């Protein structure tokens, strides 16, 4: 998911080095981006994906196409331009002036920092640590969704699992959390994301 970024680079260090932001400024700028994203639950994942995608400078037409290709946009109420305007207003992306053509978009340091802070790996790790009782179920679902699964299929494999009974939680509780953490995505069925796959692999390695 972070294909345009070199692994291992610390964004904060990078920004400090570039002198673009004072460290405190970056913190508050990042929070502004995160707040804006968190205020849009329907687009939370899409907005992160946009920040990732624009980590390299991208022409507007490419950005628009990319956004429309995200499965989360299938029942979206707002256009790609609108989402870009939100991120721009929040300081997560910026437009680069060009002589002609559609123009270019790129993620700002604050936007990049937001993505790093809320990286999928961090989120998934946090999720599993949050309520250890559910760890096995989360891993089971990631594994199960290596191939796409309908909600009914997922409900079926969790049926009778006593952990769901006290306190009562429904399978969608786990799906929702895994989706929010970036481990699963919905494209007519639930399927594992590449981040989820990486996480799963990491879990397997740590156990061996």
């Amino acid at each position, binding site marked *: 998911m972070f294909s345009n970024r070199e692994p291992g680079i610390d964004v904060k260090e990078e920004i400090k080095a570039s002198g673009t932001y004072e460290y405190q400024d970056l913190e508050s700028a990042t929070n502004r981006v995160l707040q*804006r994203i968190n*205020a849009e639950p329907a687009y939370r994942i899409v907005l992160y994906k946009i920040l990732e995608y624009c980590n390299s400078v991208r022409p507007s037409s490419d950005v628009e196409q990319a956004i429309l290709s995200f499965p989360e946009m299938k029942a979206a*109420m*707002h256009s790609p*331009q609108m989402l870009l305007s939100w991120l721009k207003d929040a300081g997560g992306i910026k437009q680069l002036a060009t002589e002609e053509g559609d123009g270019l978009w790129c993620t700002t340091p604050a936007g990049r920092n937001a993505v790093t802070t809320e990286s999928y790996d961090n989120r998934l790790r946090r999720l599993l640590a949050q309520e250890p009782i559910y760890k096995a179920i989360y891993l089971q679902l990631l594994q199960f969704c290596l191939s796409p699964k309908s*909600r009914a299929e997922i409900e079926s494999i969790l049926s009778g699992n006593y952990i769901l009974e006290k306190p009562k*939680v429904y399978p*969608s509780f786990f799906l*929702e959390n895994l989706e929010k953490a970036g481990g699963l995505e919905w494209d007519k069925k639930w399927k594992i994301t590449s981040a989820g796959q990486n996480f799963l692999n990491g879990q397997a390695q740590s156990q061996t």
Partner: protein
Amino acid sequence: MKLPVITRRNFLKATAVTGMTAAFGGSQGLVKSNTVKAKTSSSTKIVRTCCRACIGTCGVLAHVKNGRVIKLEGDPEQPMSKGAMCPKGLSGIQALYHPNRIKYPMKRVGARGENKWKRISWEEAIDTIARKLMETRDKYGAEAVIGSTGGGGNPEFKSVSRFLNVFGSPNFFEPGSSQCYMPRTLTYQLMCGQKQPLADPPNTSIADGNCLEIYTAETPIKTLVLWGANPTWSRPPEGGRAVVELREKGVKTVVVDPRLTADASKADVWLPIRPGTDVALLLCWIRYILENKLYDKEIVMKWSNLPFLVNPKTKYCLRESDIKDGGDPNTYMVWDQKTKSAKPLPFPWDDKLDPALEGTYKVKGMECKTGFQLLKERAEPYTLEKAAKICWLDANMIEKAIKLYAKNTPSGLCLGVATDQISNSVQAAMAACAIDLLMGNVEKPGALLQNFKATGFGIKMVTPLGAFLSEEQLNKRFGVIEYKGMLQWGVCHNPTVLEAIKTGKPYQPRVWLERSGNKLTALGNASSWLEAFDKLDLIVHVFLYPTSFSAYADILIPATEWLESEFVLPALNKVCVRQAVTHTWETMNETLFWAKLAKRCAELGHEGCKNAFDPKKTAPELPYWNSMRELTDGLCKLRLGMTFEEVAKKAPYEEFPYDEWKQYYTYKRIDPKTKKPEGFGTTSKKLEIYAEAFIKLGQTGAPYSPFKLAPVSKDYDPLPYYSEPGESPLEDSELAKEFPLVMTNGRLPYYHHGTLRNIPWLREIYPVPELWIHPTAAKKYGISQGDWVWVESKRGKTQAKAYVTAGINPGVVYMERFWNPETLDTETHGWREMNVNLLSKNDAPYNDVVGTYTLRGYQVKVSKAGGPPKGIWTKPEQFKAWLPEPSDPTKQVEV
């Protein structure tokens, strides 16, 4: 705005904002307007219709000239309002032509709360919502869609729940229900039964259009108790007018209310009770009536279940089958004093037996008490003195009130909404109902509890299609197992909804479809809901004009005002209609909106929605409709044998003669099938003062659930009991020291729930909420008449203007719900300045049967404020900005 890329043209188009930040609240509407949209005619015509500014049905004559409504006056032919109208109804023109109506479907283009909107077509609005609903259902399940409604001017309560049932979501809720009326409809139905399925269950709420006896000129009622009820302010032209006329005829009144309301000011006895302690006082009344043998012995012995023995193990009344192999499970046991043994009592009575009313008897090794005995023991601690101490009343005045009610008969106890807003809600209704039943104030001339014949149309236009909701989905309803009383209205438990939104457990709601005024004014502890908005993918608000809630929505749907809508309404033995007098902008009757949404979901492949359009699948209920006329015609033909137009032309008309409508003693009528009296509509056919039906409800969900549900954690109690409010001034707690005053609320005559705060003339009359405070308390806290004050509870603080008056219990303060449309476009969105529901309590203790939280009877403190909240309007000239404004011509859409 500089947006040089992504093609400037497209970007601007995508982000174009109609009215931009302009102002839901200020002097500009969302869209400015120039001309009138309505049918044109040079002459004035008068259209007979009915109001819906509240839940009343007052008759209205609307004068229409050149297509514009120019005058409203009361219709003398409507038999309940008799030509009277109240300020709410009379403001119909200002509401209809308000410059800030929601005029078109709109979608949010800024962040939630920024109030940036773009006009969209109806097609786009419905398609967008439907697609999101379908995706949500596929991803998380239909239960992730929640829907809500509310009282204010609601044309049809069941529209939202019908849609949700069809869609497969069990999660329908409203701020009312458990906090408004449902504790009473539930309790009275379980204790008295219901024989008129098209009417509300018999109960004593005047504000909800019951107690029809008071509308009859010849009623012999002699004493009327208004307990937490104030019809003069809640339903002025109908119940209010009727009570005034009764008083004029010499009927005595007792008012139980912390404040000196309009009705209290005319009462023979006023009991300014401490809010939240009603059950203690009601149990005292019961004790006094039993101790002094003031009850109706004929009714209690022969027509109530109080002589029945109670099985101490199960708490149910003892059946013959409990003690005898092959015994009849439907025959109840009594203790026969002649034979000194337990005997089955055949319905309705056996003169050969001499059943004991009170006492404890040994039956098959069990110590069995009679229902009467158990009730007596329950009430025993509540002497006049004890009740006076708990309720902050004078014992002599309590006794005077009871004597008036119990000796100057026939009498009736009208129970208002006040007790629905305390955690003892159902117990209050049980006790109040028991008092009227003990006194035999049921189905006799002068009684409030009647079974008058309902008109063929009844009170419900939209039926809920409850059978569409599967057992699996019903079990997912928030709070359904613990609070099974909510099954009567098919609603879920508000605090549990909120908890689920916040925690994701047991599952996360994702879409909120809301139809009503301002949830942030109506929901208890309103601030606690703020966090919810950031967890929801889609929030749709269907209403007449933008409210604070709209600011957090994604799509706004413009609903019709009552002058633009159709409905059929019963009024005593007459049928009345509400007719669409005109139509403005692109507003749509919301009853039609939900049908159109179901249609679109059906087109997108939703099986339940498809079936809902198939009369074979919905029978005996009507299928969904493609137009309002299809619905109104369908119902009128089915129930009245005419088209809507034919009914409208004829209305108001008598469906059957007055004497046939006013049927007394229906329980004594002989049933031709059984050759026995009909009895009451309960399981035992008796008045179930020992309300064992609550036990069964808790254990199974019967009679409201079509499926047997898991039992509650603790059986519901079949008798009323008193619990001190969750926040009590009696306990010497730190809380009570910091917050020493008890808060109550109550209806104003100018507004209904959260509505009409944008009506210029009403705001001129009552521009800001008053905080009623007793002179002794005012002096203690340094507050003078007219001061701006801060009112604060554990949960928040807000402002009001002090009204120092001896007309309130000294330890109590009063404030009614309020919000400020003029500050909608500020960061408060109008709901924080003067909103008593920032203070109210929506956490436990909840009522055990219906989950009621505490809107009255919690602790607050009061202090002087430096001045009014910023930006609010208080002067008449400021409200001019909201005076009627003509509307643009818009393409015709169905009303």
